[in-house]
Structure formats: C-alpha cells, structure tokens
C-alpha cells in the first residue's frame, strides 16, 4: 500500500472512531431522555407540582419508565402534567394507579411516582388521566419536626429538673447506698417466701377441711350438712323456747308472791310480821335466851363434877393420853 493510502486509511479510522464515540454518547443520552423508542402519553392533574421540571423522571414502583414532557396551568388550582411513558408499560400500568410527586433523595430532583393499587382495573390507554395524591412537602415535614423538637425540649427540661432533684435528695441516696437495707430486703423477702409457703399450707388445710365439711365429716360437717341433726336442733330450739316461756311464767309468779309478802309485812299479818314487828315478842325471846344461858352454865358445872367422879375419871384420862400421842 502506498504511503499516501496508508495515511488515508489511518485518518479514516481516526474519524470513524471519533464519530462512533459521539454516536454512542448521543444514543445513551437519548435513551435516558426517552427520546428514542416508542412511548405513549399519560396525564395527571396536580394542585402543586413543587418544582417539578420538564425532563424529570417518571417511576413506576421505583423503576424509571419515562419522563415529564409538559406542564400546563389549567386554572388557578389545577396543573396538568403530561408524562411520556414507555410503550411496553401499557401492559403494566392500570387505570386506578395513582401518580404522586416525590423526590430523589432528600434534596434531589423531583420525580413522579406511579403507584399501582390493590384493586384490579383495565390497563391504561394513550392519553389517560391518572388520579393523584398530594405530595409530602418538605416544609410540612420540617414544621412537624419543629413542634416535635419543642416538645422534646420541654420534656428534657423537666427531666433535667427531675434528675437534679433526685441527685440532691440525700434520703434517696442513703437508701440506695445502704447495704444493710439490701440485706434486710433480702431477709424480708425470705420471710415473705416462708410466710407465703405457710399460707399455702394453711389454705391447703382449709381446703381439705372444707372438703370434709362438704362431705359431711366432723361436727361442723354434721351441723352444716346433716339434715336429721338440723331437724333435732330445730325441735330442741322449739323446746328451749317453751322452757324459757314457762320460766317467764315462774318469774311472774315469784314476783306476785314477793309482792304479797311485802304487803303482808306492811299490813302486819302472819307469823313473820309478829316476829319482826311485835316488841313484846322480842322481849320474851331475849328473856328465854337468858334463861337458856344460865341453864347451860349449870350444866357445865355438873359435867365438871362428873369428870372428877371416880367412876368416870379413868375414861377422861385415857382420852387425854390419846390426844397427846396424836400430837
């Protein structure tokens, strides 16, 4: 190959290489801008598009399926956004899908999200109008966050005061640092444990007693459960009632007797009244008593004389001896 021809071939390669770079770059950019390939149009009405721009991405469940082609102001409260969506999404997006505005990250570009809904509906056609959902505005989020922050501030302030008071409280700290207290609590819990065990035993006993009572064992069981016993008790009770009634009568009779006696005493009738009231009778009684006294004196002298009589002296001596031996 002549030198000239060789140079020409190299030049051709150089030009073609550069041209290929340009074509590949343009193709890749065009592919991302959805200018190439077949597309169809969807529309959505928004009240506020929050800075959406022509060329922003459209996503279906997070996958990029198109771009925003046009935005028109229909009236003071409605904006119509025209979306350019890939043709093959006609077999995916349904008419009840909801378009909402989102952001690519916290500060990123705006995107239109098309979200499928649970209920089934027919697939979209070219030019269909999708229903929309209001966007979450960063301003609103920040406003909520601000009030949350204020609340947290108030809470932490009061928490600070509370902890300060806890720290200053000497009683609490001594309570916390007292090791003896811990031991005591330990011991107390031990006691409590034992008491609980005992209580458990007691309840078990009570339960068995109650079971016995229910089955009619023991006196309580008999009392509570035995119907015959109940009958007896009822009859005894009725008899007791009768007895108490007759006792009442007796008391009434006694009352009448004492009343009559009292009346008799006052009126001076009967022997008792004679003893108590008649002064001549009492004088006679005291004289009779004096005579009895002198009579017994004489009797004592006669007995003494009898003791010294030889017939009875030995008897008295023997009696004396026997008394000494006993002492």
């Amino acid at each position: 190959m002549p030198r000239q021809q060789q140079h020409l071939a190299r030049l051709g390669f150089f030009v073609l290489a550069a041209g290929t770079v340009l074509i590949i770059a343009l193709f890749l950019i065009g592919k991302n801008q959805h200018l190439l390939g077949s597309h169809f149009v969807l529309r959505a009405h928004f009240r506020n598009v929050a800075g959406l721009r022509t060329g922003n991405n459209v996503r279906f469940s997070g996958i990029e399926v198109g771009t925003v082609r046009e935005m028109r102001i229909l009236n003071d409260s409605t904006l119509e956004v025209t979306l350019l969506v890939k043709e093959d999404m006609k077999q995916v997006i349904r008419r009840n899908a909801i378009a909402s505005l989102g952001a690519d990250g916290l500060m990123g570009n705006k995107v239109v999200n098309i979200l499928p809904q649970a209920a089934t509906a027919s697939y979209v056609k070219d030019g269909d109008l999708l229903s929309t959902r209001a966007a979450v505005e960063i301003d609103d989020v920040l406003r909520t966050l601000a009030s949350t922050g204020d609340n947290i501030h108030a809470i932490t302030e009061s928490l600070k005061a509370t902890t300060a008071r806890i720290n200053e409280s000497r009683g609490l700290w001594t309570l916390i640092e007292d090791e003896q207290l811990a031991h005591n609590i330990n011991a107390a819990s031990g006691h409590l444990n034992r008491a609980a065990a005992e209580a458990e035993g007691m309840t078990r006993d009570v339960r068995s007693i109650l079971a016995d009572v229910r089955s009619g064992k023991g006196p309580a069981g008999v009392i509570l459960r035995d119907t015959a016993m109940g009958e007896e008790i009822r009859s005894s009770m009725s008899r007791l009632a009768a007895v108490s009634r007759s006792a009442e009568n007796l008391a009434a009779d006694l009352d009448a007797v004492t009343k009559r006696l009292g009346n008799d005493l006052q009126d001076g009738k009967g022997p008792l009244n004679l003893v108590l009231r008649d002064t001549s009778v009492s004088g006679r009684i005291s004289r009779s008593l004096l005579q009895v006294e002198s009579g017994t004196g004489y009797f004592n002298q006669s007995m003494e004389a009898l003791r010294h009589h030889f017939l009875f002296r030995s008897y008295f001596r023997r009696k004396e001896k026997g008394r000494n031996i006993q002492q």
Partner: protein
Amino acid sequence: MKIPKQTLAFLQESGGLARFAGRVFTEGLRPPFELSEFLRQCYLIGNKSLPLVGTTAFIMGLVLTIQLRPALLSYGVESELPYIVADAIIREIGPVITGLIFAGKIGSGIGAELGSMNVTEQIDAMEVSGTNPFRYLVVTRVLAATLMLPLLVLLSDAIAITGSFIGINIKGVMSFGLFTDEIFQFLDFTDVFPPLIKTFFFGFSVGIVGCYKGYTSSRGTEGVGRSANASVVIASMLIFLIDLIAVQITDLLGFN
C-alpha cells in the same frame, strides 16, 4: 491624537488576522479544492496528535477523579463521582486541555513550517509555478485543524472518562455498567453539544493563528522561531477568550 506604539501594533495585528481569516473563507469556498493536501494535513494534524492528546486526557481523567474523591466523600456523595468528573471533562476540561495541547503542537508546527517556507522563499516560488500558495498551504491547514480538533476532543473525552473509571477503581470498586449508568443518568444533550461546537472555533483559531504568523513572518531564521512562539501564545489566549464567550452564549440560551 497619538496612539501608543504597542497599541498600534496590536490593532494592526488584529486587523491583519481578521483580513487573513476573511481571505480563508473567500479563497476556500471557491474551487478548485486541494483535496489530497487537505487529507494529508488531516492525517498529520489529527492522527499524529492523538497519542499526545490521549495520554494527557487519560491522566487528566485519572487525576481529577482521585483529587475530587475526598471532597465528595466528605459530602457523602461519592456515588456521584462518575457524573461530576464526566460532566467536568465533557463541558470544560476536555475541550480546553485538548485545545491547549493542540495549540502547542499544531499551532507551533504550522507557524514554524509556513515561517521557514516564507523565509526560504518557497511560497514565492509556489506562486511563480502557478499554484495558489494560500489555497494550497493555508486553507487546507485551517480547515484540517477546524475539523480535526472536535474529533480529537471526542476521543480525548472518551479516554479521560476511561481514566476516571480506573481512578475510581483504584480507591474503590464500581462496575463499568454502573459507572456509565451514573454518567448517562444525568447527562444531557446540552452537556455535549455546546462544548463540541466551541471546539470547532478552537480548532479554527489555532489553524488561522499558526498560518497567519507563519505566512507573515519576518525574514530571517529568527522570524521563524518568533512566529512559532507567537502562534502558540495567541492561539492559547484565543482558546480561553472563545471559551469565555461560549459560556456566556450557552448561559444566555439556557443550556447551563
């Protein structure tokens, strides 16, 4: 009114350059066209510059990635590194760095070549032999420079982005698929076309300045060196001026 000598010289130079550029258009649009000489110049200007331009572009992409990485890491947007580096390369660094390298290599080459031809009176001889030296020497070189620089920039952009990919994988791990996806997710036609259009102007300015300085060099070997040097300096300066104007225009048109 007395105009300072240097200002007068500057104005004369500007006027001469403008008239020279106008002559390129009037002569270049009329047949006959020197096609084989144009293709030879394309090979010399385009192909022969590629190794130098490619090397610098590769290093630029690699270095830019490694340098930008800590800054992006501190903002937690390391994943945006491919896009940021690619956008910087495509919009500014690729065209300007390649243009400056091109000015250094091609501008000085054209200036020295035409200057020495001028000094050795080859241009005069060419005129005598019936060939239009302006058409044969100047138009072909200016056109070749104008068309070859955009191609060089496209290739250097691709090489620089490859360097960036390697730079990312030196410090971390990113698959090539994710890397290109990250770049083209955000890249727009307005990122690609305005820089590409301005490279035509860069190429034209390098070619025209080199030719002008060579074609009008003063006699003597000293003039050759001076014209080569001046063509590099003026071409580099013009690249930055055109860049400044280009960014204003793209901004006005809303492409930024």
